[in-house]
Protein backbone atom coordinates (compact mmCIF):
# COMPACT_ATOMS: atom_id res chain seq x y z
CA UNK A 1 0.00 0.00 0.00
CA UNK A 2 1.13 3.50 -0.65
CA UNK A 3 1.31 6.26 1.93
CA UNK A 4 -1.65 7.81 0.23
CA UNK A 5 -3.82 4.87 1.16
CA UNK A 6 -3.18 5.51 4.81
CA UNK A 7 -3.89 9.20 4.62
CA UNK A 8 -7.06 8.83 6.65
CA UNK A 9 -5.01 7.37 9.50
CA UNK A 10 -2.07 9.75 9.18
CA UNK A 11 -4.33 12.70 9.68
CA UNK A 12 -5.14 11.39 13.17
CA UNK A 13 -1.68 12.35 14.37
CA UNK A 14 -1.76 15.82 12.88
CA UNK A 15 -2.32 18.88 15.00
CA UNK A 16 -5.75 20.08 14.01
CA UNK A 17 -8.78 21.54 15.69
CA UNK A 18 -10.36 18.17 15.19
CA UNK A 19 -10.52 16.25 18.48
CA UNK A 20 -10.51 12.69 17.25
CA UNK A 21 -8.51 10.28 19.37
CA UNK A 22 -8.96 7.19 17.18
CA UNK A 23 -10.38 6.07 13.86
CA UNK A 24 -14.11 6.74 13.63
CA UNK A 25 -14.23 8.98 16.71
CA UNK A 26 -14.89 12.70 16.90
CA UNK A 27 -18.60 12.11 16.46
CA UNK A 28 -20.59 14.80 14.83
CA UNK A 29 -24.30 15.07 14.18
CA UNK A 30 -25.13 12.07 11.96
CA UNK A 31 -27.50 14.27 9.95
CA UNK A 32 -24.96 17.07 9.47
CA UNK A 33 -25.48 18.86 6.19
CA UNK A 34 -28.89 17.30 5.59
CA UNK A 35 -31.95 19.50 5.11
CA UNK A 36 -33.71 18.90 8.42
CA UNK A 37 -36.76 21.10 7.91
CA UNK A 38 -40.03 19.38 8.75
CA UNK A 39 -42.58 19.55 5.92
CA UNK A 40 -45.53 21.83 6.72
CA UNK A 41 -47.96 18.97 6.38
CA UNK A 42 -46.20 16.98 9.13
CA UNK A 43 -46.89 17.32 12.87
CA UNK A 44 -43.35 18.01 14.16
CA UNK A 45 -44.04 16.94 17.76
CA UNK A 46 -45.54 13.65 16.65
CA UNK A 47 -42.67 13.10 14.20
CA UNK A 48 -40.16 13.62 17.02
CA UNK A 49 -42.01 11.11 19.20
CA UNK A 50 -42.21 8.63 16.33
CA UNK A 51 -38.51 8.81 15.46
CA UNK A 52 -37.75 8.33 19.15
CA UNK A 53 -39.78 5.10 19.15
CA UNK A 54 -37.94 3.66 16.16
CA UNK A 55 -34.59 5.01 17.34
CA UNK A 56 -35.00 3.54 20.84
CA UNK A 57 -35.86 0.12 19.40
CA UNK A 58 -32.58 0.12 17.48
CA UNK A 59 -30.45 1.68 20.25
CA UNK A 60 -31.57 -0.73 22.96
CA UNK A 61 -31.44 -3.80 20.75
CA UNK A 62 -28.02 -2.84 19.41
CA UNK A 63 -26.79 -2.66 23.00
CA UNK A 64 -28.17 -6.12 23.78
CA UNK A 65 -26.45 -7.50 20.67
CA UNK A 66 -23.18 -5.84 21.67
CA UNK A 67 -23.37 -7.68 24.98
CA UNK A 68 -23.02 -10.92 22.98
CA UNK A 69 -19.56 -9.85 21.79
CA UNK A 70 -16.86 -12.34 22.92
CA UNK A 71 -19.62 -14.85 23.71
CA UNK A 72 -20.56 -16.03 20.22
CA UNK A 73 -19.85 -19.67 19.30
CA UNK A 74 -17.53 -18.82 16.36
CA UNK A 75 -15.51 -15.87 15.16
CA UNK A 76 -17.61 -15.62 11.98
CA UNK A 77 -20.80 -15.31 14.03
CA UNK A 78 -19.15 -12.71 16.20
CA UNK A 79 -18.30 -10.49 13.22
CA UNK A 80 -21.79 -11.03 11.81
CA UNK A 81 -23.47 -9.93 15.01
CA UNK A 82 -21.08 -7.00 15.47
CA UNK A 83 -21.99 -5.78 11.98
CA UNK A 84 -25.71 -6.17 12.67
CA UNK A 85 -25.37 -4.27 15.95
CA UNK A 86 -23.40 -1.54 14.14
CA UNK A 87 -26.07 -1.18 11.45
CA UNK A 88 -28.73 -0.79 14.14
CA UNK A 89 -26.61 1.72 16.04
CA UNK A 90 -26.25 3.72 12.83
CA UNK A 91 -30.00 3.67 12.34
CA UNK A 92 -30.52 4.68 15.98
CA UNK A 93 -28.14 7.63 15.68
CA UNK A 94 -29.89 9.01 12.62
CA UNK A 95 -33.36 8.47 14.08
CA UNK A 96 -32.48 10.09 17.42
CA UNK A 97 -30.90 13.00 15.57
CA UNK A 98 -34.05 13.30 13.46
CA UNK A 99 -36.17 13.24 16.65
CA UNK A 100 -34.06 16.06 18.10
CA UNK A 101 -34.38 18.20 14.97
CA UNK A 102 -38.14 17.68 14.77
CA UNK A 103 -38.41 18.50 18.47
CA UNK A 104 -36.38 21.67 17.88
CA UNK A 105 -38.72 22.79 15.10
CA UNK A 106 -41.22 23.71 17.84
CA UNK A 107 -38.75 25.57 20.06
CA UNK A 108 -37.88 29.24 19.93
CA UNK A 109 -34.16 28.64 19.35
CA UNK A 110 -34.82 25.76 16.95
CA UNK A 111 -32.51 23.41 18.86
CA UNK A 112 -33.87 20.15 20.16
CA UNK A 113 -31.83 17.64 22.13
CA UNK A 114 -28.91 15.99 20.34
CA UNK A 115 -28.39 12.22 19.98
CA UNK A 116 -26.26 11.98 23.12
CA UNK A 117 -28.77 13.81 25.31
CA UNK A 118 -31.49 11.53 24.02
CA UNK A 119 -29.52 8.32 24.39
CA UNK A 120 -27.72 8.97 27.66
CA UNK A 121 -29.73 11.46 29.67
CA UNK A 122 -33.29 10.22 29.46
CA UNK A 123 -34.64 8.00 32.22
CA UNK A 124 -36.29 4.61 31.86
CA UNK A 125 -39.88 5.85 31.58
CA UNK A 126 -38.87 8.28 28.81
CA UNK A 127 -37.73 5.49 26.48
CA UNK A 128 -40.26 4.36 23.89
CA UNK A 129 -38.83 1.03 22.69
CA UNK A 130 -40.93 -2.13 22.52
CA UNK A 131 -40.35 -4.65 25.31
CA UNK A 132 -39.15 -7.33 22.87
CA UNK A 133 -35.64 -5.79 22.78
CA UNK A 134 -35.10 -5.57 26.54
CA UNK A 135 -34.32 -9.08 27.77
CA UNK A 136 -30.84 -10.59 27.90
CA UNK A 137 -30.95 -13.65 25.65
CA UNK A 138 -30.54 -16.79 27.72
CA UNK A 139 -28.86 -18.71 24.91
CA UNK A 140 -27.97 -18.63 21.21
CA UNK A 141 -31.40 -19.99 20.23
CA UNK A 142 -33.09 -17.07 21.95
CA UNK A 143 -30.75 -14.66 20.18
CA UNK A 144 -31.60 -16.16 16.77
CA UNK A 145 -35.34 -16.18 17.47
CA UNK A 146 -35.49 -12.63 18.79
CA UNK A 147 -33.33 -11.31 15.95
CA UNK A 148 -35.58 -13.03 13.40
CA UNK A 149 -38.76 -11.55 14.85
CA UNK A 150 -37.25 -8.09 15.34
CA UNK A 151 -35.71 -7.83 11.89
CA UNK A 152 -38.74 -9.29 10.08
CA UNK A 153 -40.98 -6.73 11.82
CA UNK A 154 -38.63 -3.79 11.36
CA UNK A 155 -37.93 -4.65 7.72
CA UNK A 156 -41.67 -4.68 6.98
CA UNK A 157 -42.15 -1.34 8.76
CA UNK A 158 -39.15 0.27 7.03
CA UNK A 159 -40.43 -0.96 3.67
CA UNK A 160 -43.52 1.18 4.25
CA UNK A 161 -41.56 4.07 5.76
CA UNK A 162 -39.40 4.36 2.65
CA UNK A 163 -42.47 6.13 1.20
CA UNK A 164 -42.92 8.41 4.24
CA UNK A 165 -43.99 12.01 3.71
CA UNK A 166 -40.99 13.03 5.84
CA UNK A 167 -38.09 12.86 3.39
CA UNK A 168 -35.46 12.33 6.10
CA UNK A 169 -37.35 9.44 7.68
CA UNK A 170 -37.96 7.99 4.21
CA UNK A 171 -34.23 8.13 3.41
CA UNK A 172 -33.23 6.52 6.73
CA UNK A 173 -35.78 3.75 6.15
CA UNK A 174 -34.78 3.12 2.51
CA UNK A 175 -31.20 2.64 3.65
CA UNK A 176 -32.28 0.45 6.57
CA UNK A 177 -34.27 -1.89 4.33
CA UNK A 178 -31.09 -3.09 2.63
CA UNK A 179 -29.40 -3.76 5.97
CA UNK A 180 -32.37 -5.39 7.66
CA UNK A 181 -32.83 -7.79 4.75
CA UNK A 182 -29.37 -9.20 5.54
CA UNK A 183 -30.13 -9.33 9.28
CA UNK A 184 -33.38 -11.20 8.73
CA UNK A 185 -31.77 -13.74 6.41
CA UNK A 186 -28.96 -14.33 8.88
CA UNK A 187 -31.37 -14.95 11.74
CA UNK A 188 -33.73 -17.08 9.60
CA UNK A 189 -30.89 -19.34 8.51
CA UNK A 190 -29.86 -19.94 12.13
CA UNK A 191 -33.43 -20.62 13.28
CA UNK A 192 -33.74 -23.21 10.51
CA UNK A 193 -30.37 -24.78 11.25
CA UNK A 194 -31.20 -25.12 14.93
CA UNK A 195 -34.87 -26.07 14.49
CA UNK A 196 -34.14 -28.64 11.81
CA UNK A 197 -30.95 -29.78 13.52
CA UNK A 198 -30.51 -32.29 16.35
CA UNK A 199 -33.25 -33.13 18.87
CA UNK A 200 -31.33 -31.00 21.39
CA UNK A 201 -31.07 -27.92 19.16
CA UNK A 202 -34.69 -28.36 18.04
CA UNK A 203 -35.85 -28.46 21.66
CA UNK A 204 -33.84 -25.37 22.58
CA UNK A 205 -35.07 -23.42 19.56
CA UNK A 206 -38.69 -24.32 20.28
CA UNK A 207 -38.28 -23.37 23.95
CA UNK A 208 -36.68 -20.06 22.98
CA UNK A 209 -39.62 -19.17 20.73
CA UNK A 210 -41.94 -19.95 23.63
CA UNK A 211 -40.10 -17.40 25.76
CA UNK A 212 -40.09 -14.65 23.10
CA UNK A 213 -43.55 -15.12 21.60
CA UNK A 214 -45.55 -13.35 24.36
CA UNK A 215 -43.76 -10.12 23.28
CA UNK A 216 -44.77 -10.36 19.63
CA UNK A 217 -48.29 -9.00 20.00
CA UNK A 218 -47.02 -5.65 21.30
CA UNK A 219 -45.15 -5.05 18.03
CA UNK A 220 -48.44 -4.64 16.19
CA UNK A 221 -50.41 -2.62 18.72
CA UNK A 222 -51.86 0.72 17.72
CA UNK A 223 -50.40 3.81 19.38
CA UNK A 224 -51.50 7.46 19.37
CA UNK A 225 -48.23 8.76 17.88
CA UNK A 226 -48.55 6.62 14.76
CA UNK A 227 -52.23 7.53 14.51
CA UNK A 228 -51.31 11.24 14.50
CA UNK A 229 -48.99 10.79 11.50
CA UNK A 230 -50.98 9.52 8.53
CA UNK A 231 -48.74 9.25 5.48
CA UNK A 232 -45.65 9.72 7.64
CA UNK A 233 -45.65 6.79 10.05
CA UNK A 234 -46.32 3.14 9.21
CA UNK A 235 -49.25 1.52 10.99
CA UNK A 236 -47.83 -1.70 12.49
CA UNK A 237 -51.21 -3.41 12.09
CA UNK A 238 -50.78 -3.09 8.31
CA UNK A 239 -47.60 -5.19 8.28
CA UNK A 240 -48.82 -7.96 10.59
CA UNK A 241 -49.93 -10.28 7.79
CA UNK A 242 -46.65 -9.87 5.92
CA UNK A 243 -44.55 -10.47 9.06
CA UNK A 244 -46.67 -13.49 10.02
CA UNK A 245 -46.17 -14.95 6.56
CA UNK A 246 -42.39 -14.62 6.84
CA UNK A 247 -42.34 -16.19 10.30
CA UNK A 248 -44.61 -19.04 9.16
CA UNK A 249 -42.28 -19.74 6.24
CA UNK A 250 -39.24 -19.90 8.49
CA UNK A 251 -40.93 -21.98 11.19
CA UNK A 252 -42.18 -24.46 8.59
CA UNK A 253 -38.70 -24.87 7.09
CA UNK A 254 -37.31 -25.23 10.62
CA UNK A 255 -39.90 -27.89 11.60
CA UNK A 256 -40.88 -25.68 14.52
CA UNK A 257 -44.38 -25.04 15.88
CA UNK A 258 -45.74 -21.55 16.21
CA UNK A 259 -45.97 -21.08 19.98
CA UNK A 260 -49.35 -20.43 21.55
CA UNK A 261 -49.45 -18.72 24.89
CA UNK A 262 -50.80 -15.48 26.18
CA UNK A 263 -49.28 -12.13 25.13
CA UNK A 264 -47.36 -10.37 27.89
CA UNK A 265 -49.80 -8.22 29.83
CA UNK A 266 -49.80 -4.45 29.54
CA UNK A 267 -49.48 -2.54 32.80
CA UNK A 268 -52.58 -0.42 33.41
CA UNK A 269 -53.08 -0.52 29.64
CA UNK A 270 -49.51 0.61 28.93
CA UNK A 271 -46.38 -1.00 27.50
CA UNK A 272 -43.02 -0.12 25.91
CA UNK A 273 -44.32 2.59 23.59
CA UNK A 274 -45.81 4.35 26.67
CA UNK A 275 -42.57 4.14 28.66
CA UNK A 276 -43.56 1.10 30.70
CA UNK A 277 -40.76 -1.45 30.51
CA UNK A 278 -39.68 -4.81 31.91
CA UNK A 279 -37.33 -5.17 34.87
CA UNK A 280 -34.37 -6.10 32.66
CA UNK A 281 -34.48 -2.72 30.93
CA UNK A 282 -33.43 -0.73 33.99
CA UNK A 283 -30.21 -2.71 34.33
CA UNK A 284 -29.48 -2.44 30.61
CA UNK A 285 -29.98 1.31 30.63
CA UNK A 286 -27.78 1.78 33.70
CA UNK A 287 -24.91 0.14 31.85
CA UNK A 288 -25.58 1.91 28.55
CA UNK A 289 -25.60 5.33 30.23
CA UNK A 290 -22.94 4.85 32.91
CA UNK A 291 -19.94 6.34 31.09
CA UNK A 292 -21.81 9.38 29.77
CA UNK A 293 -23.33 10.09 33.18
CA UNK A 294 -20.01 9.63 35.01
CA UNK A 295 -18.36 12.15 32.67
CA UNK A 296 -20.91 14.84 31.78
CA UNK A 297 -19.88 16.83 28.74
CA UNK A 298 -17.47 14.17 27.51
CA UNK A 299 -16.98 13.85 23.76
CA UNK A 300 -16.33 10.65 21.86
Amino acid at each position, binding site marked *: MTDDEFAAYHSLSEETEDHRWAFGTGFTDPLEGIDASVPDSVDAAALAAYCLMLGDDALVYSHRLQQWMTRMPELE*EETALANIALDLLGQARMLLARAGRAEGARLADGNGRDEDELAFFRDEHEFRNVRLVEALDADFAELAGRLLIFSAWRLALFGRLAESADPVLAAIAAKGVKELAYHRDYAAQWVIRLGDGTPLSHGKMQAALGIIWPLVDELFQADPVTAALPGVAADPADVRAAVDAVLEEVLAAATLDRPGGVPMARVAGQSGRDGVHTEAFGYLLAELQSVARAHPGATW
Partner: protein
Amino acid sequence: MVTAAGGYGISGERADLDTARQIAAAVPDPELPMLTVADLGILRDVAAEEGRLVVTITPTYSGCPALREIAHDLRHRLSRAGFAEVTVRTALAPAWSSDWITAEGRRKLRAAGLAPPHPAPDRIGPVPLTLTAPRREPVECPQCGSRDTTQTAAFGATACKALYRCKACREPFEYVKEI
Protein backbone atom coordinates in the same frame (compact mmCIF):
# COMPACT_ATOMS: atom_id res chain seq x y z
CA MET B 1 -8.67 31.87 -10.91
CA VAL B 2 -6.02 32.50 -8.29
CA THR B 3 -7.13 35.07 -5.74
CA ALA B 4 -5.03 37.77 -4.15
CA ALA B 5 -4.63 35.54 -1.11
CA GLY B 6 -2.98 32.97 -3.32
CA GLY B 7 -5.73 30.38 -3.16
CA TYR B 8 -8.35 29.22 -5.58
CA GLY B 9 -11.48 31.27 -5.63
CA ILE B 10 -14.66 29.28 -5.94
CA SER B 11 -16.32 31.31 -8.58
CA GLY B 12 -17.90 28.32 -10.22
CA GLU B 13 -15.34 28.51 -12.98
CA ARG B 14 -14.96 25.20 -14.70
CA ALA B 15 -11.22 24.94 -14.16
CA ASP B 16 -11.57 25.39 -10.40
CA LEU B 17 -14.36 22.88 -10.13
CA ASP B 18 -12.55 20.37 -12.31
CA THR B 19 -9.50 20.63 -10.07
CA ALA B 20 -11.66 20.20 -6.96
CA ARG B 21 -13.41 17.22 -8.51
CA GLN B 22 -10.11 15.54 -9.32
CA ILE B 23 -8.82 16.06 -5.79
CA ALA B 24 -12.05 14.83 -4.19
CA ALA B 25 -12.30 11.83 -6.49
CA ALA B 26 -8.78 10.69 -5.54
CA VAL B 27 -9.53 10.43 -1.80
CA PRO B 28 -9.16 6.76 -0.75
CA ASP B 29 -11.79 4.88 1.20
CA PRO B 30 -10.28 4.01 4.61
CA GLU B 31 -11.92 0.56 4.77
CA LEU B 32 -11.18 -0.36 1.15
CA PRO B 33 -8.03 1.71 0.59
CA MET B 34 -7.43 0.29 -2.88
CA LEU B 35 -10.54 2.20 -3.98
CA THR B 36 -11.10 5.92 -4.17
CA VAL B 37 -14.40 7.43 -3.08
CA ALA B 38 -15.18 7.90 -6.77
CA ASP B 39 -14.48 4.21 -7.52
CA LEU B 40 -16.79 3.24 -4.67
CA GLY B 41 -19.55 5.54 -5.90
CA ILE B 42 -19.96 7.43 -2.63
CA LEU B 43 -18.80 10.78 -4.01
CA ARG B 44 -22.09 12.23 -5.22
CA ASP B 45 -21.35 15.82 -6.15
CA VAL B 46 -18.74 18.57 -6.17
CA ALA B 47 -20.26 22.02 -6.69
CA ALA B 48 -19.74 25.71 -5.98
CA GLU B 49 -22.33 27.44 -3.83
CA GLU B 50 -22.03 31.13 -3.01
CA GLY B 51 -18.25 31.08 -3.00
CA ARG B 52 -18.00 27.81 -1.08
CA LEU B 53 -16.99 24.44 -2.38
CA VAL B 54 -19.65 21.87 -1.47
CA VAL B 55 -18.74 18.17 -1.64
CA THR B 56 -21.56 15.67 -1.19
CA ILE B 57 -20.92 12.09 -0.07
CA THR B 58 -23.24 9.24 0.91
CA PRO B 59 -22.69 6.45 3.47
CA THR B 60 -22.48 2.83 2.33
CA TYR B 61 -24.12 1.53 5.54
CA SER B 62 -26.03 3.42 8.29
CA GLY B 63 -23.36 2.77 10.91
CA CYS B 64 -20.36 3.28 8.64
CA PRO B 65 -17.56 4.72 10.82
CA ALA B 66 -15.50 5.61 7.77
CA LEU B 67 -17.76 8.42 6.59
CA ARG B 68 -16.42 10.82 9.18
CA GLU B 69 -12.82 9.99 8.22
CA ILE B 70 -13.61 10.49 4.55
CA ALA B 71 -15.16 13.89 5.24
CA HIS B 72 -12.07 14.87 7.21
CA ASP B 73 -9.74 13.70 4.46
CA LEU B 74 -11.74 15.58 1.81
CA ARG B 75 -11.61 18.83 3.75
CA HIS B 76 -7.91 18.36 4.48
CA ARG B 77 -6.87 17.69 0.87
CA LEU B 78 -9.03 20.39 -0.62
CA SER B 79 -7.86 23.04 1.81
CA ARG B 80 -4.25 22.02 1.18
CA ALA B 81 -4.93 22.57 -2.53
CA GLY B 82 -6.11 26.10 -1.79
CA PHE B 83 -9.87 25.71 -1.45
CA ALA B 84 -10.48 27.85 1.60
CA GLU B 85 -14.15 27.25 2.21
CA VAL B 86 -15.11 23.59 1.94
CA THR B 87 -18.36 22.07 3.16
CA VAL B 88 -18.85 18.31 3.14
CA ARG B 89 -22.48 17.26 3.01
CA THR B 90 -24.06 13.85 3.52
CA ALA B 91 -26.83 12.73 1.19
CA LEU B 92 -28.95 9.85 2.49
CA ALA B 93 -31.20 9.49 -0.52
CA PRO B 94 -30.99 7.71 -2.81
CA ALA B 95 -29.36 5.05 -0.63
CA TRP B 96 -25.96 3.81 -1.81
CA SER B 97 -25.97 0.67 -3.92
CA SER B 98 -23.00 -1.59 -4.63
CA ASP B 99 -24.03 -1.19 -8.29
CA TRP B 100 -22.42 2.26 -8.07
CA ILE B 101 -18.93 0.75 -7.77
CA THR B 102 -17.33 1.65 -11.09
CA ALA B 103 -15.76 -0.73 -13.59
CA GLU B 104 -12.36 0.63 -12.54
CA GLY B 105 -13.31 0.03 -8.90
CA ARG B 106 -14.23 -3.57 -9.68
CA ARG B 107 -10.95 -4.10 -11.45
CA LYS B 108 -9.05 -2.73 -8.44
CA LEU B 109 -11.00 -4.94 -6.05
CA ARG B 110 -10.15 -8.04 -8.08
CA ALA B 111 -6.50 -7.02 -8.27
CA ALA B 112 -6.47 -6.70 -4.47
CA GLY B 113 -7.91 -10.19 -4.01
CA LEU B 114 -11.50 -9.18 -3.30
CA ALA B 115 -14.46 -10.41 -5.32
CA PRO B 116 -16.55 -7.51 -6.62
CA PRO B 117 -20.32 -7.53 -5.97
CA HIS B 118 -22.96 -9.06 -8.21
CA PRO B 119 -25.80 -6.76 -9.33
CA ALA B 120 -27.97 -5.67 -6.39
CA PRO B 121 -31.48 -7.14 -6.28
CA ASP B 122 -34.23 -4.97 -7.71
CA ARG B 123 -36.31 -4.23 -4.66
CA ILE B 124 -39.87 -3.24 -5.31
CA GLY B 125 -42.33 -4.31 -2.63
CA PRO B 126 -41.67 -6.84 0.14
CA VAL B 127 -38.18 -8.32 0.34
CA PRO B 128 -38.24 -12.09 -0.24
CA LEU B 129 -36.59 -14.36 2.30
CA THR B 130 -33.41 -16.24 1.41
CA LEU B 131 -33.75 -19.37 3.52
CA THR B 132 -31.12 -21.71 2.18
CA ALA B 133 -27.67 -20.91 0.85
CA PRO B 134 -27.85 -17.62 -1.05
CA ARG B 135 -29.49 -18.03 -4.43
CA ARG B 136 -27.05 -15.70 -6.10
CA GLU B 137 -24.79 -16.64 -8.98
CA PRO B 138 -21.57 -18.32 -7.86
CA VAL B 139 -18.90 -15.85 -6.77
CA GLU B 140 -15.74 -16.09 -8.81
CA CYS B 141 -12.50 -16.60 -6.88
CA PRO B 142 -10.34 -13.49 -7.36
CA GLN B 143 -7.19 -15.62 -7.02
CA CYS B 144 -7.71 -18.45 -9.50
CA GLY B 145 -10.96 -17.55 -11.26
CA SER B 146 -12.78 -20.74 -10.22
CA ARG B 147 -16.52 -20.48 -9.67
CA ASP B 148 -16.44 -23.40 -7.25
CA THR B 149 -16.57 -21.24 -4.12
CA THR B 150 -18.57 -21.29 -0.91
CA GLN B 151 -19.66 -18.65 1.57
CA THR B 152 -18.17 -19.15 5.02
CA ALA B 153 -19.87 -16.16 6.67
CA ALA B 154 -22.45 -13.63 5.52
CA PHE B 155 -20.64 -10.80 7.28
CA GLY B 156 -16.94 -10.01 7.21
CA ALA B 157 -14.55 -7.64 8.92
CA THR B 158 -16.67 -4.72 7.74
CA ALA B 159 -20.39 -4.47 7.04
CA CYS B 160 -19.85 -4.34 3.29
CA LYS B 161 -18.07 -7.70 2.95
CA ALA B 162 -18.84 -11.42 3.28
CA LEU B 163 -16.31 -14.23 3.72
CA TYR B 164 -15.79 -16.89 1.06
CA ARG B 165 -13.49 -19.81 0.39
CA CYS B 166 -12.42 -21.18 -2.96
CA LYS B 167 -12.76 -24.95 -3.21
CA ALA B 168 -10.35 -25.10 -6.15
CA CYS B 169 -7.33 -23.16 -4.83
CA ARG B 170 -8.46 -23.41 -1.18
CA GLU B 171 -7.78 -19.73 -0.58
CA PRO B 172 -10.17 -17.73 1.58
CA PHE B 173 -11.25 -14.37 0.17
CA GLU B 174 -13.64 -11.53 0.80
CA TYR B 175 -16.67 -10.71 -1.33
CA VAL B 176 -18.07 -7.19 -1.44
CA LYS B 177 -21.78 -7.76 -0.84
CA GLU B 178 -24.43 -6.64 -3.23
CA ILE B 179 -26.74 -4.18 -1.53
